[in-house]
């Protein structure tokens, strides 16, 4: 399989008044085409910085980032943390914006977007504005928008971070559904180990700042996965253990 995203020895530090603050200290990993990789780590460890570098929005001081062998800018769909939808556009308008970003949108694209909304249970909300939707629905629309962009690699930064536990689980299952029909390469950053395990092919853990790769856990279980499944729970314990160990 081809490598979709490849980071080699990425070092990054922010300038501060008291000197540079090292955030990433030599992060290397590769994501295969069509793979879903989740990155978990303690909050403030540089997960967002890692994604922004992978999106080409930030540049590492050392090391390289490649998306299909080229610089990443313009090649990935990146969903930042927080409320990312344009409040003056409807759900449909927001989803279409992902294609408008590349140029004019035609009738066929519109139909495609409507079909996507319908396929994943959002057709009722096509004409609704973000403020008329619940938090869970807004994030579903924002996720669909990211999938609808004409890009093969998606980077998701804590897309479900602000949701309550019940909604979160619901949207996780929905997201697995979406991904299984719209196969793309995905890198998800999350602090929720269970979320990573329910969705991903592989889970990477980071050390506290300055972040380095701590360990990698392949998840070879069929989807949809049960959260209470013994293997999921065993992996969860192993990952939490690895995270705790990295902290020392």
């Amino acid at each position, binding site marked *: 399989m081809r490598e979709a995203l490849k980071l080699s020895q990425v070092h990054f530090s922010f300038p501060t008044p008291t000197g540079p603050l090292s955030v990433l200290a030599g992060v290397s990993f590769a994501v295969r085409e069509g793979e879903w990789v989740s990155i978990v780590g303690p909050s403030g460890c540089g997960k967002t910085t890692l994604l922004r570098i992978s999106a080409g929005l930030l540049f590492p001081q050392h090391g390289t980032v490649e998306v299909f062998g080229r610089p990443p800018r*313009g090649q*990935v*769909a*990146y969903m930042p943390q*927080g409320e990312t939808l344009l409040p003056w556009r409807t759900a449909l308008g927001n989803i279409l914006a*992902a294609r*408008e970003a*590349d140029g004019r949108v035609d009738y066929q694209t519109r139909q495609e977007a409507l079909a996507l909304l319908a396929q994943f249970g959002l057709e009722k909300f096509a004409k609704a504005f973000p403020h008329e939707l619940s938090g869970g629905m807004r994030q579903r629309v924002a996720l669909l928008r990211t999938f609808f*962009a004409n890009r093969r690699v998606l980077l998701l930064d804590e897309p479900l971070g602000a949701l309550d536990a019940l909604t979160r689980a619901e949207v996780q299952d929905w997201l697995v559904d979406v991904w299984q029909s719209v196969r793309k390469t995905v890198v998800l950053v999350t602090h929720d180990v269970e979320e990573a395990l329910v969705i991903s092919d592989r889970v990477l853990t980071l050390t506290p700042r300055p972040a380095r790769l701590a360990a990698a856990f392949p998840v070879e279980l069929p989807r949809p996965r049960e959260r209470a499944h013994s293997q999921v729970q065993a992996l969860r314990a192993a990952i939490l253990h690895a995270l705790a160990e990295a902290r020392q």
Partner: protein
Amino acid sequence: MKKKTEFLQALLIVALILGLWEGAVRVLRFPPYVLPAPTRIFVTFIQDFSLLLYHSSLTLLEVGLGLGMGVALGVAVALAAFYVRPLGRALTPFLVGSQVIPVFAVAPLFVLWFGFGIWPKAAVAAMIVFFPVAVNFLDGLQAVGPELVEFFQALGTPEPRLLRMVRIPAALPFLFSGLRIGATLALVGATVGEWVGASRGLGYLMIQANARLRLDRVFAAILALSLLGLGLFWAVGALERLLFRRR
């Protein structure tokens, strides 16, 4: 329901003031060249209606031209200050400090430079509108959060398209709050411009009437000016509601 009672309250207060005014004029027998009674002002307003309409339309034209020029210039300067960082840093203190310039004091200079026509008044109005529009629009452009912008930047959206799709729509409400402040002040600015030197317009009418001790006409002109101001305020609000109807 609440709005309705608030409106009734306001109406009651206005009626009370007008009643006191009317009573004072009648009881104390103020001559009309010192203080005309509200009823008399109202009668003059009706009698002079076509005259007021003519002069109002000229003042309104000046304000309209001023608004157009001021908004265009304000938007252009805000965009320049946003994209050229050093320029923005250099301009910001001036934009903020400019709020203390007494624009009305500049009006005579404008008449000197641009003559007695509509242009010096339009220029005063433009200058008044320019600053709040530029300051607020720049604020709005700078307030657009990275969470809205970065999705498009990562996709490689060219900046002009990003500006059109995200930055301008996000900053428009800020521009409108500047415009609301500016539009009514611009009316005052244009009127002051007419005081300084004009042969037409509500300001000119007021100066003429004042010189002839026709205070009823001065008040009628003030009433016309207030109505124009309310109309402008409402028009800006209506345009805003039309644009952001479904936000």
